[in-house]
């Protein structure tokens, strides 16, 4: 017997002794006395729970053995699936949808002191110059939506879109602002919207994840993977990040020499051991683990098949403007359509590169920004048209937006003019748009003042947008809660109002 084995044996004996010590007569009596009290308390607590702070009559029952089984919304849903297109870095509303001719006239003048008083900016210091719109605008469609020349394709489907032009936030740095939009809190630790949705509704296709994340633009969003994390919800609800080149999910292929049968046999063996473990301890997380192994095995076949966009006809590739074999937004967005078609509940796309400060050419409002627009314009338009022709836009909600807006002033980093034209982060007004699933078509809600600095009507927040998304999915955002650390949490914290005006 080696020293290590001896050592292990001793550890085991000590553990057994520790367990035995818990079983003394004194412990038994103590447990009886205290235990009855605890039992009584336990039966009292749920009653406070469900009536005063619970989920309002119909708590979501988390079944660890089938964590992703489809579940019922609180009321009939209008949207069954969501595609969220997050332009990480925050695109300029002033060069896309919020047309401000008055700002043109102020171009190059000093920013009036009244706009700067009591405000903090991420980079602007001192008195910046105003910067007129750096794009030509025209009205499009029957709705007369103003869309700039930077999105020529999108302009052709203006009548399918619903703009929110006075969205506001209180975070002027990317990471907290992205967290706020996606998780309802600027700090880490909350579940993302997609996690909440898959927790509440499960997913219809048990061979695919319920919440898929696709990134493009060469970088992750600034807030990192937390923007698709599950926070305090069971980890099975976190977003599954997939790639549009190479293996869609890392390590999804069986290693060389491992046959499908052998893989099946080893997963069966692991699950058998886990089942034994569950018999001993009864911990529901073990059931969760077993189901995840089974799902992973199924996904080894179904995911590569779904994730392969090459089987789409050439006409569709042309429509989306894909670039086969590359990791790009257009490929991701075509993939998103395939995924929702197969029953994936929530698809989250992040595209990095919209942070147009003007510190370098790729971040200039009249150079890099235009290139970013060209990278997404065609594919976003294609997505909406493609969903429409398949009848999927009836119950698929598409949302496009960044985490904040950009200033009507030209950025002057540290008080000195930037080498290129750019705009700083702006919290007081920005534009997002939605399409499909019971949202009004060809509609615009909210207005900004004549230079696009602040919201003057129809002001909304990230919480309002979240509340509206949940409403379309059949949830009352105030009642959709999860109890953690002794209190119920919701996606919208204590805020948010459904933007009824934009709903059909």
């Amino acid at each position: 017997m080696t020293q290590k084995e001896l050592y292990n044996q001793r550890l085991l004996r000590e553990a057994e002794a520790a367990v035995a010590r818990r079983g003394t007569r004194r412990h038994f009596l103590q447990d009886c006395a205290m235990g009855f009290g605890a039992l009584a308390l336990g039966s009292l607590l749920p009653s406070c729970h469900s009536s005063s702070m619970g989920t309002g009559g119909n708590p979501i029952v988390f079944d660890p053995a089938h964590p992703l089984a489809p579940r019922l919304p609180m009321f009939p849903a209008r949207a069954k699936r969501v595609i969220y297109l997050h332009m990480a870095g925050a695109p300029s509303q002033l060069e896309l949808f919020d047309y401000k001719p008055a700002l043109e006239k102020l171009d190059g003048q000093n920013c009036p002191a009244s706009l700067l008083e009591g405000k903090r900016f991420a980079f602007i210091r001192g008195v910046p110059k105003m910067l007129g719109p750096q794009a030509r605008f025209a009205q499009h469609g029957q709705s007369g939506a103003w869309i700039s020349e930077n999105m020529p394709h999108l302009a052709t489907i203006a009548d399918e879109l619903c703009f929110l032009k006075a969205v506001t936030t209180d975070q002027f740095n990317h990471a907290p602002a992205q967290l706020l939009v996606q998780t309802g809190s600027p700090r880490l630790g909350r579940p993302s919207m997609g996690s909440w949705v898959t927790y509440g509704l499960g997913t219809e296709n048990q061979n695919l994840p319920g919440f898929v994340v696709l990134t493009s633009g060469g970088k992750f969003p600034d807030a990192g993977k937390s923007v698709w994390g599950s926070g305090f919800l069971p980890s099975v609800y976190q977003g599954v990040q997939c790639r549009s080149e190479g293996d869609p999910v890392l390590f999804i292929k069986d290693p060389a020499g491992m046959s499908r049968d052998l893989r099946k046999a080893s997963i069966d063996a692991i699950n058998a051991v886990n089942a034994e473990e569950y018999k001993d301890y009864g911990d529901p997380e073990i059931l969760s683990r077993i189901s995840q192994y089974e799902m992973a095995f199924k996904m080894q076949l179904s995911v590569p098949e779904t994730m392969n966009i090459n089987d789409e006809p050439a006409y569709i590739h042309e429509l989306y403007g894909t670039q086969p074999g590359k990791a790009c937004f257009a490929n991701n967005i075509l993939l998103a359509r395939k995924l929702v078609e197969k029953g994936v509940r929530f698809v989250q796309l992040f595209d990095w590169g919209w942070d147009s400060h003007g510190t370098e050419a790729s971040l200039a409002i009249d150079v890099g920004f235009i290139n970013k627009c060209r990278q997404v314009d065609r594919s976003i338009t294609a997505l909406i048209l493609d969903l429409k022709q398949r009848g999927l836009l009836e119950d698929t909600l598409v949302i496009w937006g960044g985490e904040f807006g950009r200033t009507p002033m030209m950025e002057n980093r540290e008080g000195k003019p930037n080498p290129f034209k750019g705009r700083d982060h702006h919290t007081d007004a920005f534009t997002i748009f939605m399409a499909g699933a019971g949202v009004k078509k060809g509609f615009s809600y909210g207005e900004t003042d004549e230079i696009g600095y602040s919201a003057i009507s129809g002001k909304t927040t990230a919480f309002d947008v979240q509340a509206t998304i949940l409403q379309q999915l059949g949830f009352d955002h105030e009642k959709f809660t999860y109890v953690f650390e002794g209190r119920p949490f919701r996606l919208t914290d204590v805020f948010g109002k459904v933007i009824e005006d934009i709903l059909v």
Partner: protein
Amino acid sequence: MRWIAHFHPVIVHLPIGMLLAALLLQVLSGRPAYAALRPAVPVVLLAGAVSAIASCVTGWLLAADGDYEESLVAWHRWLGISLTLLSLVVYWRVRRRGFDRMHTLLSLGLLALVVVTGHLGGSLTHGSDYLAVGGSASPASAEVDSPIVNVQAAKAYAEIVRPILRDNCFSCHGATRQKGGLRMDETAALMKGGKDGVVIEPGNGSGSELIKRLLLPEEEEHHMPPKQKKQLTERQIALLHWWIDQGADFTRRVAELKQPDSVRPALLAVQSVHPRTMVSDVPSDAVEAPDRRAVEALRAKGVLVMPVAQNSNWLDADLSGAAAAGSKVQEVVVLLSALKKQLLSLRVDHTDVGDSGLAAIGQCVALRSLDLAGTRITDAGLAALRGLRELRVLNLVGTGVSVAGVEGLKRLTKLRAIYLYGTKVGHEDWTALKKAFPKTMLDTGGYSLPVLATDTAVVRAPAPGGPGKK
């Protein structure tokens, strides 16, 4: 002296309570066990009568303020006085003659008067419908608002302003009561104003007393509606403000009035009065619970059958997983007819269902949404769907149907959308189809986007100081 009038609502509870107590004591004292209570009856009666006199005095003064509907006040006044006199008579008789039959009759009369007068008093203070179950329905709830489809065509006063006033003001400033002398349910009275003068100055919203009062901080004494009442929303105030600004006109339509940008959202919001009911196609009425065994049978075949929401018996079914579960979809659809009352939405897309399967689906008459995309069905099968009168959305993408088959469904007038991408329906069929389905959105798909030079061209930074720079 006027201020004591305000004690009327407090004091009235004394005679009501005491006279009822006297009557109760009287009934009890008829039993031997309580006979000792008998001497207490006249004492309590007298106390009741005295407090009734106090109520009459304060009530008379309060009525003089004239905020109440006159006929109701008159009834309340004279019944109250009769009640007081009767209580004195009863007291006097019981002292003189003791408890005889006449006394019992008079006591019953007293009881009736207490009940009726008390009720009238309640109607005066709380509105005549204060007993209505489910809170206070507004006195003018007989008015029914028809939903505003197009706000521009709506009458500014009758359809927008009046409902706001009715729901928030009429209970105190209406036909029953006119607090502060203000009556708002009649246009002439509304423009005349109240005791303190006019409340609406046409053309001057911010100068009008009505708007000023609405905008006062809620804890201010003059704020309207009073603190404990339901408050107007910002949008409702904006609409009233706008209406007064535009001349407080009682006949014109919204389109005939100027609409500054600030009021547009509020006006648009009026237009979508019932967003929640439109959120889905699910009927608002309930349906009987589905046959459990039928649901289980379908689930066993790999069909996803789910209620549309918690606490709902309406069902959605999705057959797309059935093939993977080894079931023949053609055989599974037959099982659906057991759920025909409950089934609202059905997905059989990309399955091997064919024309013969449509016969079974055609029996599910409650269906709102039917997805047949990517199936083998043809025009012949579509005929079986002609009875689906409730159908709103029909997805035929990628099937073999043609214009002839689709036209056969033209009597399904509730159809909101038909998806026809990838079928034999082409652009040349558009006119015929549009004629058959004038109100339906038809989508034949096949969209393409033009290839623009800018799709692939890359903008480069101008050379520093070069001519490209602005």
